[in-house]
C-alpha cells in the first residue's frame, strides 16, 4: 500500500511545478498529515496540516450555518504569501503556500485538478 503515499507525493511534486507554489500538504479532514512537500525542515508539516484542517473545517461550518453551502476553498492573503486550502474529496484536503506575487488563476485551476486526483486515490 506504500504506493498510495507515492501517488500523493507525485501529485504534490506536480503542483510544485506551478509558478509561485512554495509548499504543499495533503491532510485528512481531521487534521492528520498524509503527504507533504515542504522545502525547509523548520516548518512542522504536522502542525501545518492540523491548523489547515481546522481552518477549512471552521469555514465550512460557518458558511453552512448561514445556509450558503460548502465553500470551494479558503484563501488567506498576507504580505509574505498566500495560503489556499481546498477540499479533496470527503476524506482529504489539499493546502498550498505561494509567494506573495503568485497569480491565483492558474494555481486555482491546477489545485482543482490535483484535488480531483486525490479524491480518486484516497
Amino acid at each position, binding site marked *: 500500500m506504500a504506493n*498510495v503515499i*507515492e501517488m500523493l507525493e507525485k501529485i504534490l511534486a506536480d503542483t510544485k511545478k506551478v509558478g509561485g507554489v512554495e509548499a504543499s500538504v495533503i491532510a485528512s479532514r481531521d487534521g492528520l498529515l498524509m*503527504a507533504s512537500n515542504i522545502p525547509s525542515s523548520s516548518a512542522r508539516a*504536522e502542525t501545518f496540516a*492540523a491548523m489547515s484542517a481546522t481552518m477549512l473545517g471552521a469555514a465550512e461550518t460557518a458558511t453552512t450555518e448561514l445556509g450558503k453551502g460548502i465553500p470551494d476553498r479558503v484563501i488567506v492573503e498576507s504580505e509574505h504569501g498566500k495560503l489556499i486550502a481546498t477540499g479533496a474529496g470527503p476524506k482529504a484536503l489539499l493546502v498550498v503556500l505561494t509567494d506573495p506575487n503568485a497569480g491565483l488563476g492558474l494555481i486555482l485551476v491546477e489545485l482543482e485538478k490535483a484535488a480531483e486526483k486525490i479524491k480518486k486515490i484516497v
Partner: protein
Amino acid sequence: MIETGITKLDDYLMGGIPNGKSLVYYIHPGVEGNVFGMQTLYHNLAEGSKCVFIASSSDPLMIKDTFKEFGWNLDAHKENLIVVDAYSGLVGATSNEKYVVEDPESIDSLNGTIEKVMEELDESSTIMFESLSTIMDLCGEKETIDAIKNWNMHGMLYEHVLIYNFTAWPYEPETLDLIKHELFDAVITVGGIAERVIFGQYFGVLKAEWSDIELKSMLFRVLRPGGIRIYIPKIVVTGPYNAGKSTFVHALSTRAVSVDRIGTTVALDHGHVDHKGFSADIFGTPGQERFDPIIKMLSGEAMGIFLVVDSTNTKDFVRAKQMLEITKAYGLPLVVIANKQDQSGALKPEDIRSHFNIPESVQILPAVADKGVGVFEAFEALVDKITEVA
C-alpha cells in the same frame, strides 16, 4: 538473553531474544528498516556486550558515520565491536579489519569467515548481518538459504544471538516464504501502511518461537538523531471550558502552538511530544459548546484521549462526560486528568471517580498542569494503554 533496544518490541518478545536464537527484520522495500538491526546492535554495545557487524553493503570505514546520524557513537565501544568486512573484496579495496571475506560473491568464502568469527568469540555475542538481501544478490538465493541454516546452527551451538536485516525484494516466492516462516526463530515485519488516513511505517511480530504474545502492529518514526520511536499520530485532549487543556498540552509538548483569543482556545492546540521512546502529536480541543462542530471534526482517528477536568469544579463534570460523547471517545484508551490539585477544595481522584461514575478500568491521575506536575506520568499511562501488549 539480549534486548532489541526498541521500545515495546522487547515487551512483545517477553524481554528480548534468548541466547542461541535468530531474529530477522523482514523489511518491505521503500521502508526505513535497516535502522532496526543497527539500533539492536548499538543498544547491546552500549550495554557493554560484544557485538559483530557483518558489513555486506557498506564500506567498513563509513559505518561509523551511518551510526552517527542517529547519534550513536561507535568509537566509544570500539573494544567490543568486531566488523567483518564483506565489502572491500567487492570493490578491490584493502581492508583494515581483522576478519575479511576475500570473495564476498562466494558463499563458501563468506561461510568460512563467519564460522571462524563465531568460533573464536570468547563469550555469547550479538551478531548482526547488515544486509542479508545483499548477500542473496551476490551469492544466489539457494546458496544463501543453506548458509543461513548453517549460521543459525552455529549460533545455537556457541550461544550467540543472530540478527539479520533483510529487505524483501521480489525474490522467488518460496525464498520469501522460507524466510518468513521457516529459517528464523523470530520474524519482525517492518512495512508501510496506508490505512484509512493513517499513513506511515509500522513494525509487528510475525513470529517469535519463545513468546506467545499476540501480534499487534506499531507505527514508528525514525529520528536523526534518536533512532526508532513508536509514533502516535493523534492523541486528543478534551474537557470543559477552563479545565486547563491548553496548559496541559503545552506542559507536555516540546513544541506546541495554540489558536487562542482572550485566554481561551478557539480552534486547536497542537503539540508534539518526544518522551521515553514514544513520539506523539497532541490535538487539544476547545471546551465551550459553541465550538462543538470543530471538536467533532478534529477528534476523528484519535488513538487515545485525555479528559482534563478542573478538580475544584464539580458542576463541569456533566459537560466533561458530554465531551467524551462528542469526541466519540468510548472504546478508545482514556485517561482522566484531575487537574488543579494544588487549589483548595480540589477533589481527590477517587472522589471524582464516584461523583462522575467512572469505571475502575479508566485511570484518573492527579495533576497540576501549570506547574508541570503529573503530566508525563499521565502521558506514560495513556501510551501504555494505547500500545498495551495483549
